[in-house]
């Protein structure tokens, strides 16, 4: 009996999405478990913040001011560039993202299945988080939200073996997919032919073609390209720019541009992502 029920559950969970509500109800009930486990770490963090010495705080403050100044200088340039970009796009009659809304979430210190690349964050549907939402850290794309409940959400990292992300090479706009390998510091670009124009050190950014991630965010850096004459595809490895294993904060992004306009603009978008990929593209819900 139990075996049959479990098998049925697994199949439904894998293929359909009806069980999302069951899972979210259960995880609300089990939220105290995660909370208790996280308690020592959050308590020690709180203590170290509360008991910090004055001189250390001053030092930190000074450093942050310096950093802020530098960032503001760059921001000035950015504003001008963005305005120019908008104007040029106006001339070309194509729209561009207006901007993104961002919410900062903290990672909850719990260990999940060691063979999946997932983390839990402390913002849930009560903060407006939705399924499939992009998650970034300070440097680059981290992953996307897969399960939500009222107080927490589970994020599938881009390095999970079941995650694929449409990217393009920043240098020349070459589009491809970055597929996770299951190792936290490695991504694969499996569908590039041997003569593709890609080099070590190339920056990969999101292309926005999947419709989930906003375009233009950095994802990874190419670390090795090996072309074997006998093989149809080149072997390209990349390292995620996000500190997936170290970060403690994550940013949830709401893209302000509605999805439909993006699809209207690029009707070939769907075809583009599915074209070179034998397996289902995008990401599969676990």
């Amino acid at each position, binding site marked *: 009996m139990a075996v049959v029920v479990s098998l049925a559950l697994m199949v439904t*969970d894998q293929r359909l999405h009806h069980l999302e509500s069951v899972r979210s109800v259960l995880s609300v009930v089990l939220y105290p478990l995660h909370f208790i486990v996280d308690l020592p770490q959050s308590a020690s963090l709180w203590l170290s913040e509360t008991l910090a010495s004055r001189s250390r705080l001053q030092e930190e403050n000074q450093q942050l001011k310096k950093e802020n100044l530098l960032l503001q200088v760059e921001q000035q340039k950015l504003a001008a560039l963005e305005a120019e970009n908008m104007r040029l796009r106006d001339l070309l009659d194509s729209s561009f993202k207006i901007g993104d809304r961002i919410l900062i979430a903290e990672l909850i210190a*719990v260990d999940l299945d060691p063979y999946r690349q997932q983390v839990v964050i402390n913002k849930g549907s009560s903060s407006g988080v939705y399924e499939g939402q992009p998650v970034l850290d300070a440097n680059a794309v981290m992953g996307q939200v897969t399960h939500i409940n009222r107080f927490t959400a589970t994020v599938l990292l881009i390095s999970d073996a079941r995650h694929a992300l449409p990217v393009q090479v920043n240098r020349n706009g070459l589009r491809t997919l970055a597929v996770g390998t299951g190792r936290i510091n490695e991504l694969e670009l499996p569908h590039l032919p041997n003569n593709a124009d890609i080099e070590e050190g190339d920056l990969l950014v999101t292309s926005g073609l999947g419709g989930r991630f906003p375009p233009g965010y950095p994802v990874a850096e190419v670390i090795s390209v090996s072309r074997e004459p006998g093989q149809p595809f080149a072997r390209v490895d990349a390292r995620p720019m996000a500190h997936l294993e170290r970060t403690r904060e994550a940013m949830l992004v709401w893209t302000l541009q509605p999805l439909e306009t993006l699809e209207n603009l690029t009707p070939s978008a769907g075809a583009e992502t599915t074209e070179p990929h034998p397996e289902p593209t995008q990401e599969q819900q676990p």
Partner: protein
Amino acid sequence: MTLSPRRGGLIIALSILLSLLLTVLPLPEWVRIYRPQWYTLVLIYWTMATPQRVGVGIGWLTGIIVDVITGTLLGQHALALSLIAFITLKMHQRLRLFPLWQQSLTVLVLLLIEKLLQLWVMGAVGQPAPPLLFWAPPLVGMLLWPWLFIILRDLRRRFQVS
């Protein structure tokens, strides 16, 4: 201490809860893969000691909870744990008579079966094959069994759970 049968249930529930906490407790990266299957060990003990109370149903429920808190496919652990509970239920009378080391070996086999079922599920849904260290937790679990057994047995006698 004299207790009503309800209180005994509390002890069982608390020990399972504790094992679930240990399952999601953050550990350094290099120890993580050696984390024993606490919930399976506790489940085996209670099924063996109190087969009239803990069985396939409790095993299935624990499995579902493990699935939710560790973010695996819903039903993956439930399947494995209900099977483990079933096997333990079938042989609980023999298991009780075994000396401790022989019990540990049996537990090792049970833990390996659980891992094997997990591996099948992972293979069926297309996750990549895990490294060889995937099989380390059952060994750790086997080494921990005598201690866990003694602790839980003392708890059971102290609170007269039956």
